[in-house]
């Protein structure tokens, strides 16, 4: 994998200067490489990784599986476009699975709200032939970061030479 992308994926707060040093390249090259990634849609944006489990009243999340009949011309794209246009849908994936085709990560204030969203908005779509709703209870790891605090210290190494 591209080392520049790997570093940005690790920490979006690295400056151009730091990235250039770490990669042993010029700042100018790093800058133009990032511009190119943006232009090509490889870099889609930057956001903060938040552990919502620790934020009071931050609502609930569910992973929704959708079994879908693909359209003759456009396959799964049309239905995916409809699903992803809802603001409360955070991620949408096409899956290679025998059980379902699309997976959507959905946010809501309450369990009822999500249940209602699925039954009224998603199940009723023409090509959707089945759904399964999985509520998220705990986020253990996300975006490559461990979210779970289980009392284990990060730095347990003893001082030795």
């Amino acid at each position, binding site marked *: 994998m591209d080392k520049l992308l790997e570093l940005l994926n690790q920490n979006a707060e690295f400056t151009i200067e730091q990235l250039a040093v*770490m990669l042993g390249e010029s700042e100018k090259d790093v800058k133009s490489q990032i511009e190119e990634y943006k232009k090509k849609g490889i870099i889609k944006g930057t956001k903060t990784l938040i552990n919502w489990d620790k934020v009071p009243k931050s609502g609930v999340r569910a992973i929704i599986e959708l079994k879908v009949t693909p359209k003759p011309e456009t396959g799964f794209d049309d239905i995916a476009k409809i699903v992803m246009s809802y603001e409360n849908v955070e991620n949408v994936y096409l899956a290679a699975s025998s059980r379902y085709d699309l997976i959507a990560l959905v946010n809501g204030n309450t369990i009822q709200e999500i249940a209602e969203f699925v039954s009224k908005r998603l199940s009723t779509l023409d090509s959707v032939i089945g759904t399964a709703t999985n509520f998220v209870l705990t986020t253990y790891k996300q975006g490559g970061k461990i979210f779970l605090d289980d009392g284990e210290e990060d730095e347990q*190494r003893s*001082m030795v*030479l």
Partner: protein
Amino acid sequence: MDYSKILNNKIQGLKPSGIRRFFDIANEMDHVISLSIGEPDFTTPWHVRQEGIESLRRGKTWYSPNKGFVELRGQISNYFARRFDVEYSPDTEILVTVGGSEAIDLCIRTIIDNGDEVLVPQPSFVCYEPMTIMAGGNPVIIRTRSENGFRLTAQELEEAITPKTKLLILPFPNNPTGAVMRKEHLEEIAKVIEKHNLIVLSDEIYGELTYGKERHVSFASIKGMRERTVVVSGFSKSYAMTGWRLGYALGPEPIISQMTKLHQYAIMSAPTTAQYAAIEALKHGDSDIERMREEYDIRRRLIVDGFCKMGLQCFEPEGAFYVFPSIKISGMTSEQFCEELIYAQHVAIVPGTAFGECGEGFARVSYSYSLNHIQEALIRIQRFLEEKKY
């Protein structure tokens, strides 16, 4: 009771590691950002840990053969041929030990008689001198210089040799300087070794951690040197397996068989669980080495750049995971500098003098830490220098 009368004189004469006191300060302080530790921050790759666990599950809890499991020795043999181009017979030329440290101890005790001189280039890891003394030998320090990239030169070597010289310790890639010896440098050393009929203990524990285009060259791969070299290496640094305590020695059968005798009496055999894990590491771990090496390389660039920008002169290290900046600009001794830094900014780095008197004026900084951790430490060191107006 006067214990000094019953305790062995040589061991009483050994200086306690000067670094202990400093570590005690660091350990008692809160919110210390440490760049002082000499081991990988990575945990052992999961597939390797799993093999260790699996061996326990299957009840593999007995001693291994004295020399180590046949399969492990076979894998070490393949590995060393594959990565460093030197062949060793798994039956007679490989001994699995409790870390590289045991292999160093065994080798020195196997070679050295009372009064023999052992050449120890410094700055270097702390164990060579005391182990030589305990074996009845006399350590002779060779001071390497920053202007030579902390490499050992043939001239420095030649000047240190006397009729009593028997063994040269060759600790490269070097802890604490990060210096490496390239093929051409090793060839110069080899001529002197041959001329004076010496034995070499080549401590290549950091052999997988070199940066830049050229890979580490094993001293045993230099023409004529295999028959007079004991290579010491292990799993700690390359596979992030420090706590498993597993290393090995490679060398000519007459030396390895004597070392094995000593190992058999003193240790019996290396840890069984660790050996099963190590087999997996050697079979499927090449990509783990690469992944960690690349990460170290990124950190190395960041930290060297950081020190240079602060005005702390820093020789570019090409191996291991340490930088060895000069702190002479402060006018303080290494110990004073490190102590003031830890009190003022809670950053722990190691005084260069922990690795020999000639480390005075330098400090060892480990980059075996996450990028965020390194960045924070650099900011604090910068603040320290600004406040002190250096």
